[in-house]
């Protein structure tokens, strides 16, 4: 029985050398004539430890990291294959505090299994949810998802069950399940991790959504910036088709469901559901006015479910363990778990799945371990480029849709990006406008023109030209964008801008330059 050595094939791990390490490991095994195999798993989500190597021992998995190719000989000499002691040894993987403190429901298998081994997937609880679903009436599946309290994890937080019910009740010759995998928000990588680390769970969720709503065709709209995820997803679809999980008879039942992976072309706005539909249909990714809702007239004007990757990937566990099991995690109207992505200037960046309700401060100071630079935390942007910047004074805000909204912020796709005290919040406000200007689809005036005008106004503030009246103008502009834009791109750009102004006003009023009469007087 060969010893199993796990080295992640996740692009976050690959970006810091996992491919080179895996190659060297394979060569070393051969050179030393060892009975071991290298398996490329997903990432456990502890990126400061990547590349993290795990060995399967009789006592469970033992982790080492971060491992460089030059460490391999000393690791093997120290008995790596038996989980031997070494300065890089992290002990039993499950006991690493960062992992131990999590509640992994959606990410239960990510980093554990071989992402493309269906056998491994089944052995670790895969397909149980679908097996339960195929024998249920669509209404019963929808009821379970509704009772679970699952809300869209893409940012808007709309109840998934209600969306599905609308599509189930809609009439159409063909219905569709569309997975929004256009994860373009900075600070978010949960979709990428699931698609690379446990692609079958997403597909399983899509098939369940299909059965629940009467849709027989699905698409994953996947951003081109994720070439690795595209490869894994395409392969996963082929494997499930061959295994009869996808196709004319799902798991031998009377349900049909098949799907395709579609690749985006680098437009951020296509993460907005109606722009995504336009793009999928082959047009410019321009936002559609609602109504009609995509649930009534979506892809090709037919009833369509558009759900985020994590929403869909959370469905199999609900159908496996039941609605109540999932709903019992969380707080208020935010039920279940949320995969929080900790990024930016932090010691311990990575994926942290937990029940809703942990405070922002716990996440930043405790879980993330503060800044990587060792300087004080200045601001934390939650929810991507359209999310608000929170100062330390708001660190008691619990991770909950309503609590964040109550503090003029949003959870979004649950990415948190930490900045140390060297951050210049005026610059960040400018970037928010600039990003909106680059990515605006151009359909509505507040977003198209407001964003460019915003950059100009910030530049005036920077130059110290009529600072107070320019700040008033910027505030007014943000109001117009917030209430006048057609979609969240223009509508939410005011969040980073206004939160920067509200919480860090000193950055908007640069110290007066020592010129003019005063400086002359000083001389």
């Amino acid at each position, binding site marked *: 029985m060969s010893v199993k050595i796990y080295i992640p094939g996740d692009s976050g791990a690959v970006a810091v050398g996992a491919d080179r390490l895996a190659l060297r490991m394979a060569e070393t095994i051969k050179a030393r004539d060892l009975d071991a195999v290298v398996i490329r798993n997903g990432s456990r989500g502890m990126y400061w430890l990547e590349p993290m190597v795990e060995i399967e021992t009789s006592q469970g998995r033992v982790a080492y990291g971060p491992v460089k190719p030059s460490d391999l000989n000393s690791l093997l000499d120290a008995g790596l294959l038996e989980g031997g002691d070494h300065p890089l040894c992290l002990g039993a993987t499950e006991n690493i505090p960062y992992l131990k403190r999590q509640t992994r429901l959606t990410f239960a298998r990510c980093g554990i299994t071989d992402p493309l081994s269906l056998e491994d997937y089944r052995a670790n609880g895969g397909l149980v949810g679908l097996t339960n679903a195929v024998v249920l009436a669509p209404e019963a599946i929808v009821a379970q998802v509704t009772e679970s309290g699952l809300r869209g994890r893409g940012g808007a937080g709309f109840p998934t069950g209600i969306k599905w019910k609308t599509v189930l009740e809609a009439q159409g010759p063909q219905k569709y399940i569309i997975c929004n995998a256009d994860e*373009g928000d900075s600070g978010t990588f949960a979709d990428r991790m699931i698609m690379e680390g446990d692609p079958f769970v997403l597909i399983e969720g899509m098939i369940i959504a299909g059965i629940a709503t009467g849709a027989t065709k699905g698409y994953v709209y996947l951003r081109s910036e994720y070439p690795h995820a595209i490869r894994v997803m395409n392969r996963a679809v082929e494997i499930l088709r061959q295994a009869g999980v996808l196709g004319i008879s799902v798991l031998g039942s009377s349900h049909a469901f098949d799907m395709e992976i579609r690749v985006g072309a680098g437009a951020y706005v296509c993460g907005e559901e109606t722009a995504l539909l336009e793009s999928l249909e082959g047009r410019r990714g321009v936002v559609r006015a609602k109504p009609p809702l995509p649930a009534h007239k979506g892809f090709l004007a037919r009833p369509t479910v558009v759900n985020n990757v994590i929403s869909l990937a959370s469905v199999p566990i609900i159908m496996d363990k039941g609605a109540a099991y999932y709903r019992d995690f969380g707080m208020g109207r935010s039920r279940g778990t949320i995969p929080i992505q900790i*990024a930016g*200037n932090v010691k311990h960046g990575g994926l942290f799945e937990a029940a809703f309700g942990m405070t922002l401060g716990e996440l930043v100071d405790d879980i993330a371990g503060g800044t990587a630079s060792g300087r004080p935390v200045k601001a934390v942007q939650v929810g991507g480029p359209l999310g608000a910047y929170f100062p330390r004074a708001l660190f008691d805000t619990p991770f909950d849709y309503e609590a964040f909204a109550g503090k003029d912020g949003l959870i979004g796709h649950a990415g948190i990006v930490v900045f140390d005290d060297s951050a210049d919040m005026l610059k960040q406000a400018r970037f928010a406008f600039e990003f909106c200007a680059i990515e605006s689809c151009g359909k509505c005036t507040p977003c198209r023109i407001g964003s460019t005008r915003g950059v100009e106004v910030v530049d005036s503030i920077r130059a110290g030209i009529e600072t107070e009246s320019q700040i008033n103008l910027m505030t007014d502009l943000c109001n117009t964008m917030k209430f006048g834009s057609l979609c969240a791109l223009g509508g939410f750009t005011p969040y980073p801008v206004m939160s920067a102004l509200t919480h860090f006003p000193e950055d908007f009023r640069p110290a007066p330059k020592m010129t003019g009469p005063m400086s002359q007087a000083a001389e």
Partner: protein
Amino acid sequence: MESRNMDAKIASRTKAIVGQLKPLEGPLLPILHGIQDEFGYVPKAALPVIAEGLNLSRAEVHGVVSFYHDYRETPAGRHVIKLCRAEACQSMGGDELAERLLWLLGLDWHETSANGSVTIEPVYCLGLCACAPAAMVDGDVVGRLDEDAVKALAKAVMA
């Protein structure tokens, strides 16, 4: 003569790609990806062929090509660096590294070096936010970039 031959070649390859992908629901983006994979960019000569194949106007096809950041109107350099400029990378000093890299390459964003060795493009998130600053070099991901890594990268792509 040369360019007319080239256009004819582009048209015939485009026709084959359109023919192959046309049965898809919403085939235009897959077709454009196919064309860019084939030629390294979306040549002007391909547009009328696509338009005819999909029963669209040439303006509509041009509108789609020009909307998306990914499609190129001219071939890229032999190496393509996509450097992330989004917030997570900014928080780790990405802006300074970007300035440094542009200076080392003697290029501005979206430019290709005169000898055709390298093109540099901004990208807004590669999903490598927990190992920032990040880049993609010829399709390979690179994380935890620092001053030394940027210097080595510039040297490698200019060679």
